[in-house]
């Protein structure tokens, strides 16, 4: 146990080191002056530049520079964007929660739909229900998420006029950002019109959440279905039947637990996929999230922003997947590692 923990901590540290080193080297690999790419300041902003020259100690060798860079990273001084001139640390802090919020709701929605459906299909294995659910799920995970989002907009926003198609909330509401999660922020705010703000935010959430959730729901459905089928085929289930338990009792007492526990971390593993899909969907729904922001930065060749955004997203994903990996090992030592989910 301690051994495993130690190894993972080690691994996380090494990965973080590699990522930070990569992002530091990026400043040199990108076109232009490395110092500009690190700070986001243009060379003509001389006085500030001299300041940062000292900070990043560019005259020293590259190792010393890297050391200073890491120091700056930890003190929250990530430089400013070429394009907007705003501090990147705050920008990432503002946009990342919006993406996480969207992905989390989509993940919740997928759980609520995918898990029960997975059970139903498995219990009706080799029956019509199973086949039809399986076919629908095939459609679900084959659909390109950006196309789905566009079709949703065409149908639900433009034809039916039910939902708005851009942003997190109508700009007429001004929600002070406390946690970065808009629904929570609305509840925390001292707005007069809290309720309508909340409803407005929900209206903005529905289409993007559903677009992202479709793919994940089908994945969760398939993983659950496979796991339940395998569990139901195992010998201890047979033994339970032999003891005279009813099918419901067998399922409740032995099936659910044994089918769910091993796959829960696998299901959580869908989060990175969700985040990626969220990044695409964000740019369609003009959602002010990290994906939209990073893609804009790529268009505008805003190297400091690319560097910071890349670092933030990859650190988030790597730490997330590694912790899930760790949980799997700790809860289920039989497994050597997280096997790829069989769908």
């Amino acid at each position, binding site marked *: 146990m301690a051994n495993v923990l130690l190894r993972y901590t080690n691994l996380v540290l090494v990965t973080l080191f590699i990522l930070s080193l990569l992002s530091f080297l990026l400043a040199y690999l990108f076109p232009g002056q490395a110092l500009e790419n690190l700070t986001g300041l243009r060379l003509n902003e001389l006085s500030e530049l001299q300041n940062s020259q000292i900070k990043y100690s560019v005259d020293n060798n590259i190792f010393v520079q890297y050391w200073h860079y890491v120091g700056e990273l930890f003190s929250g001084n990530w430089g400013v964007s070429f394009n907007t001139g705003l501090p990147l640390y705050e920008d990432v802090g503002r946009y990342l929660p919006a993406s996480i919020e969207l992905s989390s709701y989509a993940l919740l929605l997928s759980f609520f739909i995918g898990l029960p459906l997975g059970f139903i299909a498995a219990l009706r294995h080799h029956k019509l229900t199973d086949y039809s659910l399986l076919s629908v799920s095939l459609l679900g995970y084959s659909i390109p998420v950006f196309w789905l989002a*566009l079709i949703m907009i065409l149908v639900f926003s433009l034809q039916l006029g039910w939902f708005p198609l851009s942003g997190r909330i109508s700009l007429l509401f001004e929600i002070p950002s406390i946690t970065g999660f808009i629904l929570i922020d609305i509840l925390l705010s001292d707005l007069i019109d809290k309720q309508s703000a909340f409803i407005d935010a929900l209206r903005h959430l529905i289409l993007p959440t559903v677009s992202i959730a479709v793919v994940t729901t089908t994945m969760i459905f398939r993983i659950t279905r496979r796991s339940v089928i395998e569990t139901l085929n195992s010998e201890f289930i047979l033994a339970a039947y032999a003891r005279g338990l009813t099918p419901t009792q067998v399922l409740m007492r032995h099936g659910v637990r044994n089918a769910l526990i091993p796959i829960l971390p696998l299901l959580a593993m869908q989060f990175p996929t969700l985040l990626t899909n969220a990044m695409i969907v964000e740019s369609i729904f003009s959602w002010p999230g990290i994906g939209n922001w990073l893609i804009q930065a790529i268009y505008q060749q805003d190297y400091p922003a690319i560097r910071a955004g890349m670092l933030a997203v990859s650190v988030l994903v790597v730490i997330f997947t590694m912790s899930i990996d760790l949980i799997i090992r700790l809860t289920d030592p039989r497994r050597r590692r997280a096997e790829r989910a069989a769908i």
Partner: protein
Amino acid sequence: MQQSSLYQEEHHPSPLQYTWMEFKNNHIAVAGLFCFAFFLIITVFCPLLAPFDPNMQQTGDLMIPPAWDPNGGISHVFGTDALGRDLLSRIIYGCRMTFGISLLLVIVAMLLGVGLGALAGMSRGFRSSFLNHTLDSIQAIPTLLIAIIIIAILGPGLVNSMWAIALALIPQFMHQTRDFVRHELSKEYIMAAKLDGASKTHIFAHSILPNMGEMLVVQATLALSISILDISALGFLKLGAQAPSSELGAMLLEGIDVAYIAPWTIALPGGALFMMIISINLVGDGLRSALRNRLLH
């Protein structure tokens, strides 16, 4: 002449035949295979099939609806887009581009991935342990995210996006290969080969590789659908293929500008993309369940 069998002959299908028999019983999967073959034909013969040059702009025929619409005409079966380009031809060329490039990328990624995976699988010690851990973590990260990050570094463009996707696909193949190699290494026939004095490369090339074929095909179908999704997503995000190109994702992006007036410029290319991925997933699913059934029996 009716050939009667004098002896009671028992026919044992080879594993491959057995898989094919299982696969054939799955009608939907076979339909998917036909669909797949159809896209393959389009990819190869597309200049012969397309009625127009995909980039020819007929400024007189802007946004003509498809033939089944009351306002549509027969000369442009799928209608035209906002620049008066024939949509059918663009979709055919788009299929070639999206499908063909993805296929190419998967092959490249497979070659590299299998090589590296074999290396990791055959070796032991710290190098392998570190590699394994890194791989485990990387393969949980969606390829598209890796591709976006690589493109952020390389800059947008079709060639860069191809590099990015190929690189992002490699870990999947590596992982599968390594697992497979590990698994096989513990089997008796390898032990027999070892006792015969076979070298590591010999064992891999002559004993393990021939057994890997099916696993690789299944993995390749998976990678192909991922690669198609990724390359079109990057095209759609303006990070991959750029505007005049007939890549399906880039076409969808162009279609957004006229989405409300000419919804078919979104529906049709997206539909083609959807069909393509479904057919690949059908084949992949069919293969996988055929393999599973074979192993169960």
